[in-house]
Every structure is written in structure tokens, then in C-alpha cells.
């Protein structure tokens, strides 16, 4: 069935501009099958989820976002959303574990909260991942909170992902002992377990594919579990290999195309056929480049999934369409 049956935490990363947030959202929709609750988190303060699903900006609070992609029999789960910001996470953390009360307020008043979340290196990432950890590890003790079957994290970009998840390493040297050190070690054991998968989103261009390969190497070096590669924005495949080759070579049969166009009911002028042939040659060249990058992705030795480029942009309907494609390809079920 699904390629990731044991995974509870799906971390989605990718180079800027590859559609990482789109893929994270589509994956959440795909994972929300009958009776399941899925949490979609963002940590970069962009309100990308709100924009994508066309809802009001999300608070630091779990919200029911929408229903999942229906199964063939109509069954569907629920997707919830959470916007995690470091300051709120720190205050929550302090009240949860330390019942700091007065001291918590003092921290805020003295600018420590701001200091810790914007300046103190590593602490910010620990707070953000800490909240994600809490959502994944949640148990029945906390009756008011929803237990999630899966959590999808719209994570920082590929260049930063290993550092972001490698929290105990980031804190090493800063907090050598103390509870926060112990907690970050516990978080690491989840992030390194088979219950986590880090998926990388790319497009079939040289730099993003190279960055994906580098990211996978970095994740492996940090002993973080690499998930799949989602190849996004692939070009339409309306021409077969022979036609693509002919298009590049400029040997497509001009006369036949012209008469086909007439059969299709189009008033053909010479400019139209020329134009289509130029477009075909350009398309064929880009497809050839895609194929060479696709071969590199195949060599990365991880499962890969492909999503089409949507010419008209991505709206809510488009997200469900992408979710359906992810399910078909076994990324979720």
C-alpha cells in the first residue's frame, strides 16, 4: 500500500521555488483517509497554509482546516493546521514544564523571550521542532488534545534541513547539561527513528536536483531518515519519444500536421504551423533536459513521485488533484 506505513512525522523540504509548501499540503490531504486526523504544520512564519487553503491567517493553535481527499467509497479524514512560532512555543513550553508563572512573565518583560527566539542560535529551531515533537508524541494523558495519525511539517529549505532537525547537535556546546539538553536528545530519537521521513521536493533542473542530492547526503550523514523525492512541476507529456526526437531534429512532417489541423477545424496559415513547430522544438529540448535530470534522481536510490506543472496555477481543487496523484503513486494511502 503506502510506501511509508510506519511514518508518523512527514517532514517536507525542498529548494526555494520548487513548491515545497504545495507538496506538504497535498500530502496532508492524501494522508487524511477515513477516520484519520492529520496535522499540517508550518514553522517559517509565512502563513503559506492560510493562503493556499484560502482561510484567515492561522494562530498558534490547532485549527480544523479541511477534509482529506475522499477515498473511492467517499470516506475521508480531517486535516488540521498549526502555525508554529518560536515565541509562543517557548511560552507554552515554559508553562507546560516549569509552571513558571511569575518568572515566565519576567522573562518576557526582560526581553528574554525575544532574545531566546530571535538571537540565541539553535534555540529557535529546538522550540519549533519541540512543538512538532509534542504533536507527534501526544498521548491520551492530554484529553483535550487531538491525537494525530500523521503530522506533516512544511519545513525549512533543503540547505538548512539537516541542521534544523539535528537539534541536539545545534545545542551541543551551548547547553551541555540541563533539562533542555535531555529533551532535545529525546526529540532526536524520534527524528532519527523509522517513524520519521524527510521528503525532498525538487524540480527537474540542474541546481535543485544537485541540492537534493547534497541534502540527502547531509541527512544521511546526520543519521536522519531520508524519505522520498517528490519531483514537482513536470512538463506535460503529450509527445512520444520518436516525435520528441523529430521535433528537436526539425523533421516533423509539416504537411501532415497542416492537414491534421484542418481536420481539427482550424483555419491553417503557414505561420501557425511554423509556430507550433518552434514550440515543439523548444519543448523537446526542455524535455530532454528533464530526462537527464530524471536519470540523476533515479540514481539517488530513494522512492520518487512525480507531480505535473499546473499551467493555470494551483488552487484548492488543484491541491486535491495533486493529493490524488500522490496516493496513486503510493506516497500515502
Amino acid at each position, binding site marked *: 500500500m503506502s510506501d511509508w506505513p510506519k511514518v508518523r512525522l512527514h517532514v517536507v523540504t525542498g529548494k526555494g521555488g*520548487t513548491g515545497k509548501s504545495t507538496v506538504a499540503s497535498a500530502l496532508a490531504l492524501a494522508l487524511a483517509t477515513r477516520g484519520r486526523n492529520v496535522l499540517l504544520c508550518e514553522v517559517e512564519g509565512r502563513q503559506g497554509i492560510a493562503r493556499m487553503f484560502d482561510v484567515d491567517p492561522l494562530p498558534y493553535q490547532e485549527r480544523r482546516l479541511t477534509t482529506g481527499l475522499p477515498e473511492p467509497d467517499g470516506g475521508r479524514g480531517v486535516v488540521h493546521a498549526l502555525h508554529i512560532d518560536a515565541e509562543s512555543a517557548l511560552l507554552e513550553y515554559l508553562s507546560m514544564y516549569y509552571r513558571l508563572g511569575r518568572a515566565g512573565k519576567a522573562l518576557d518583560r526582560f526581553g528574554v523571550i525575544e532574545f531566546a527566539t530571535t538571537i540565541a542560535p539553535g534555540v529557535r529551531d529546538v522550540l519549533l521542532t519541540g512543538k512538532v515533537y509534542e504533536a507527534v508524541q501526544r498521548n491520551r494523558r492530554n484529553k483535550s488534545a487531538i491525537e494525530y495519525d500523521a503530522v506533516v511539517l512544511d519545513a525549512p529549505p533543503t540547505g538548512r534541513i539537516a541542521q534544523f532537525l539535528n537539534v541536539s547537535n545545534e545545542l551541543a556546546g551551548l547547553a551541555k547539561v*540541563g533539562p533542555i539538553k535531555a529533551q532535545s536528545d529525546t526529540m532526536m530519537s524520534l527524528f532519527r527513528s523509522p517513524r520519521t521521513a524527510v521528503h525532498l521536493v525538487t524540480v527537474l533542473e*540542474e541546481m535543485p536536483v544537485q541540492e537534493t542530492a547534497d541534502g540527502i547526503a547531509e541527512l544521511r550523514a546526520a543519521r536522519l531518515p531520508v524519505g522520498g523525492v517528490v519531483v514537482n512541476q513536470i512538463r506535460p507529456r503529450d509527445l512520444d519519444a520518436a516525435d520528441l526526437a523529430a521535433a528537436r531534429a526539425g523533421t516533423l512532417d509539416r504537411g*501532415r500536421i497542416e492537414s491534421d489541423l484542418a481536420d481539427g477545424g482550424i483555419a491553417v496559415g503557414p505561420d501557425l504551423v511554423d509556430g*507550433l513547430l*518552434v514550440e515543439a522544438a523548444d519543448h523537446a529540448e526542455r524535455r530532454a533536459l528533464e530526462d537527464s535530470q530524471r536519470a540523476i534522481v533515479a540514481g539517488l536510490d530513494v522512492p520518487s513521485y512525480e507531480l505535473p506543472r499546473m499551467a493555470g496555477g494551483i488552487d484548492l481543487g488543484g491541491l486535491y488533484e495533486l493529493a490524488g496523484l500522490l496516493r496513486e503513486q503510493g506516497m500515502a494511502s
Partner: protein
Amino acid sequence: MSTSRSSAHRPSRVGPATGRQAGPLDVDALIDDPGTGIIVCCGSGGVGKTTTSAALALRAAERGRRVVVLTIDPARRLAQSMGIEELDNTPRPVVGVEGTGSLDAMMLDMKRTFDEVVLSQASPEKAKQILANPFYIALSSSFAGTQEYMAMEKLGQIHRDAQAQGTYDLIVVDTPPSRSALDFLDAPERLSSFLDGRFVRLLLTPAKGPAKLMTAGFSLITNALTRILGAQFLKDLQTFVTALDTVFGGFRQRAQQTYSLLKADGTAFLVVAAPEADALREAEYFVERLSEDDMPLAGLVVNRASPEPAGELSADEAMTAAERLRRTASASPTASLTAGLLRLHADRVRMVQRERTLRDRFATAHPQVPTVVVPALAGDVHDLGGLRTVGGLLGGTADGSTSPA
């Protein structure tokens, strides 16, 4: 923190354009103008800033300027072709530049730049102490904002040297691949507010003044921090802050100098975007912010535009014809090929329409911003030839010729 983002109602008072509706951005006029001393390329991640900066720098050099380009994180092969894959934090001449100008390039080494600032500001003994502190190590290599700040610091250095020695007459700066294009402008401010922050001041107090200045509130928080982070954490932090304090003044002053340099007449900002909703939204924030801060915006570069479709055939007409060909099960052996060509054409028309709509929206909100649209190349750029082609597209000569008009 993000108050500047809600200012869409403000009219943009930007750029050299004087009319109401700006025309296309004349990149060649910008780089040929001897008054242009600094060009800053900014925009969100993944929009092609690095390539744009390098292409612009090469074009300016080949049109006769003496240029240095400061890049942040170029693709490996591009870095190799420019001879800057070695991180030594010093501009190196690029080989293969044509014409009478010159081009130097360098890749920013964030940590090294930071170290150099510390070494130049503190006594050797103090510098050694700072460089070894775990907080400094983390701050200088991973603090979100360090890269932006160091890019600015390096820009300031290169500018001072260029002024003193007359080495360059144009500096092109690529900005770090941050989440938001605004981070570049906010970095010095963020660093300053860190240095002036109440907490930092408090951490400094015990070391400087009498211990009794430690307020009850402060001991409350130090106790809390000790409980959470361990005593060593606070001790290291305190050592770090105390040690850095002596160099803070220098830091702040330099950051402010560079910031005012960005506002000066010889500087031009180019906002780079891809024709995507997110990237253009970031570009809007940036344009508004530049306008609020009275910073000189030269224009918008829309990279990676889908190539224009040929002819007048609309997407709907093409799809209808493709569908008709499929349904009639035409005997023609090329019917499915032709239907494929029609679908591709429709796809291309739709892409271009969507991108045009996005650009039009931007232009409606910011009519004063001159814009240049650069079509997507089929392949990646990783040599001077590729940069020359991009430069030609930026300058509006599609063949990549560099000769001044």
C-alpha cells in the same frame, strides 16, 4: 516586526522614473551610468538572484565598467566557471571577460567575515577569547541574519577599499537566500536591537557595576534560565556578551554606515522575482519597504518567464481542435502528434496568461516600478557564455551582444 507589510495603501515614491506609469526597465542605461556605484539584487529564494547578479556584472564589465560582484551561494559549476569556488573571501579576477572593462568576483564566507570584524575591532587577547566562545561559534555560523549582516559588512569593506584605491567603479551584490527579501534590510537593525536589548544590558551589568544592581527580577530569570538550560549556558552567554561588548560599538557604527550607503545616490536596488504569486508578493513587500525607507529602487526583474507562444491561436481553440482530432479517430498517422502539439500550445498559452495576470497585478499596485521580463532559458547557466546570454536578455538584446548602443 512586520508592520511594514501592511502598507499596501502607500503610494510608491521610487526609482528614477518620473512618469506615472513606468516603462520597461532599461538595464543597460543603469549599468552604463557612471553614477551607479552599487547594484543590490534582492528577492526571495529560488528566483535566480545569483545568476542575475553575475550576468549583470559581466555585462557591465564588458560594456567598459570596472566591476566586482559579491555572490552568496552560487551553483558549483557557475562558481567554477567564474574561478571563485575557493572560499577565500577576497575578490579574484574572472578570466575570459571581453572588452576594456574588468570583472572580479568573490563568494562570501560568512564566518570568516565575522572573524575578521572581531579581529579588527578587539585586542588580540580579547579576540581570541571571543572566537573560542561557543556562543560566538554558533552565532557566527548559524544565526539567522548573520549572513545578511555579513553581506552588508563585506559590501561596506569593498566599497571603502574601492573608494580608497579606485579599484572598482561598480559593485554588484547578490543577497542571501533568505525566507524573506526583507531580511537583508532588517539584519543590521536586528543585530543592533540584540546589542541594545535589555537582556544583553542586564547580562553586562554584573560584570561591570556593583553586584547589587542585580535586581530581584533579574535573579528570578537567571534562576529560571539556569533551571532550563543549565548553569554553564548562562555562564558562557555572559562571557560572550561581556567579551563582545567592547567591539559592539564598532559593529553598530559599521552597520549604520553600510545602511546609509544603501540609501545613497549611487545605489540602485533591483528586485528579482519569478512569475509566481509568492515571489511577486515578496517583491511587493520589498518595493513597499524600499519606498518607505527612501531607498533607491531601479526596477523589477521578472526571471524565468515562460516563453511566449507563437501565433494567435487561443488555448480554447487549440484544445477544441485537439479534442476533435482525438474523437474523429482520424486516419492520419500524425493525428495524435498534432493533437499533442495543440495541447502543448494550449498549456503554453495558459502559463503565459497566468504570468501576465500576476505581472499586471503587480504593475497596478506599483505603477512606478520599471520592469524587465527575462524568459526562461532551456538549460541552467554555468559559464560566461550563459551569463552573457542572460545579460543580453536583461539588456534587451536577445542575441547577447554587449556593444553599447
